[in-house]
């Protein structure tokens, strides 16, 4: 009884001293305490960005494609209906551009997916000089586009290509060999070699990003899951297809979506290498839109070509996002 009273007294005196020493904060509600205001301020930059740099240009492009505007007379108030789309579709270049855009995107995707999985599986393991390997594998991403272009143009040069040089040295190229009588392959001067070159460069420059995205997911799979699978008797491929890939599915889809959007809408690789030639055989939609609309001055036709990209990109985005959400459930 006495002990209890003593304890209560001590507790009271401790409470009193702490009251004396701790200053009380004034009771006030600042602007940072009002969720509505804070939320609006935080969201504003994103909303302004989307309206000014995504929504406005998009509706401008739609308006342009339905008008007869050109660089000499960029007014959009003369409505011509679908005339631009019809005339673009009837041009010889259109079928090449559409075909190549699809082939380049799909082939890049397939190669990228396989190589990403291989790289991720490699980097998820411990091996000597792993740091060095990581730096080399990440390098294409860090390299300036201009520098990369010079490197690739040299590699694919019609006369001084080091690839041709090696092929000649090992006896695969030149008169009387497998790859034909000519001394060079002329990578950028032939239809399928040109398309292939564009695909290789695309894969080369997108691989680091997709590897980083997917590697984050790979390291998030607990190591115990792999040990459990090993104890359960699974071999390498069963573990890859039943544990690793399902665990990576969401991030693989994200990486693929990213790549589709980047590759399908991109014109820099073609602009720096084949320029769509020979003829229109390596033409792609975004580069053709640029040639027509900006170089050729036909703003309305350029906008119409660019809009052909839109339904594909929209459909890909919706499909992939829906899959990603279903996976997460």
């Amino acid at each position, binding site marked *: 009884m006495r002990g209890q009273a003593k304890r209560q007294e001590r507790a009271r005196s401790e409470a009193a001293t702490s009251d004396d020493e701790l200053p009380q904060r004034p009771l006030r509600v600042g602007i940072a305490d009002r969720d509505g205001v804070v939320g609006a301020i935080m969201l504003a930059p994103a909303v302004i960005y989307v309206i000014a740099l995504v929504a406005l240009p998009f509706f401008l492009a739609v308006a342009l494609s339905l008008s007869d505007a050109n660089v000499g007379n960029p007014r959009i108030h003369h409505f011509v209906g679908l005339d631009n789309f019809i005339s673009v579709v009837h041009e010889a270049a259109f079928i090449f551009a559409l075909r190549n855009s699809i082939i380049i995107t799909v082939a890049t995707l397939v190669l990228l997916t396989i190589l990403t999985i291989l790289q991720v599986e490699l980097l998820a393991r411990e091996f000597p000089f792993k740091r060095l390997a990581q730096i080399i594998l990440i390098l294409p991403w860090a390299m300036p586009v201009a520098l990369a272009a010079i490197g690739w143009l040299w590699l694919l040069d019609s006369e001084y290509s080091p690839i041709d040089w090696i092929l000649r040295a090992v006896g695969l190229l030149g008169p009387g060999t497998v790859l034909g009588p000519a001394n060079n392959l002329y990578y950028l001067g032939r239809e399928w070699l040109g398309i292939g070159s564009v695909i290789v460069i695309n894969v080369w420059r997108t691989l680091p990003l997709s590897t980083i995205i997917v590697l984050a997911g790979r390291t998030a799979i607990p190591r115990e899951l792999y040990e*459990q699978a090993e104890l*359960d008797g699974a071999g390498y491929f069963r573990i890859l297809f039943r544990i690793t890939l399902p665990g990576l599915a969401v991030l693989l889809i994200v990486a693929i979506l990213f790549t589709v959007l980047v590759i399908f809408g991109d014109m820099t690789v073609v602009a720096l290498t084949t320029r769509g030639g020979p003829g229109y055989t390596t033409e792609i939609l975004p580069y053709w839109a640029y040639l027509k609309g900006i170089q050729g001055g036909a703003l309305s036709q350029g906008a119409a070509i660019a809009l052909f990209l839109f339904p594909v990109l929209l459909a890909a985005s919706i499909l992939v996002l829906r899959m990603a959400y279903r996976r997460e459930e």
Partner: protein
Amino acid sequence: MAALEVRGIEKRFGDFKALKGIDLATGEGEFLTIVGPSGCGKTTLMRLIAGLEKPTAGDVLLNGKPITPLPPRSRNIAMVFQSYALYPHMSVADNIAFPLKARGVAKTEQERLIQWAAGILGIEALLHRRPARLSGGEKQKVALARAFVRKPSLFIFDEPLSSLDAQVRAVARAELRQLHDRSGVTTIYVTHDQVEAVGLGDRVAVMQAGALRQIGSPQALYRDPANTFVASFIGTPPMNLLEHGDTIIGFRPEHVLPRPTMPVPTDVATFRLRITRIEFLGAEWLAYGSTNEEFGSARVLCRLRQEAVDKIRTDEIQEFVVSRSQLRFFDRKTGMRTAPVPIRGESA
């Protein structure tokens, strides 16, 4: 023949010696628990037995055959991890089927075995669920079913109950032991909780700092600890250890009695204790006290029955007695058991 035998196992990680030469053998169908504080190397030992790590030296034998060079999948050892490691994107049925599929068991036989394992653990209703939608106790049962379904030669459990609530844990402990008794599969169970180790195991192995300190029945460990570490690790509360010259004297809290409760004290040792606090535990009381300088002013815990508590006044020095047959003696330098030394008290 021993089901599992471990011979002179050593493991280093760089300069750190995780295991310093462990020898261990289990009987056929035995339930052996391995207990020790965290960092004592018990999990490393499990991983070596399962094949997830390679030993620096020594051998692992299963049913008399050396398995040290074999990868985990060739060992037929099932392990249940603390996290259960359920495959998150597979249904419960697919989780249980995974080891069967990996072994190429026929589809109809798979179905039969899944139903059989799910029936034993009472999880038939959960077979179509994903692991994310299971409670901790349900996850544990699925992990057990997955380990159980392939009929392994050895079960390894690495703290499988530690992520469960206290209430669920008691039930799960009983179920685990029942499962073992039904299957008769040799089981090694790793835990840091000595209550669990003593309650579950046929035998208990105590590990500390990468070495095996004692192995024996729970009763042997409790009554005759081989050293001061085991004495202070096994039992809640642990054995009282008092320094006395070159020896350490040990006795269990329940063997301490206030002198007045013993009408004719014979063959006892007497200690003068000051009790500072008494705690009510239900069936008995726990008294916190300390000795005088003769025994190094050590802390002493006593578990007392109601009639003994009535004789106690706090903050006063009183005489307590312990029967001499309950005293244990340890060498002060090595901590190992030694011969009894004479101390003050009445003899018969």
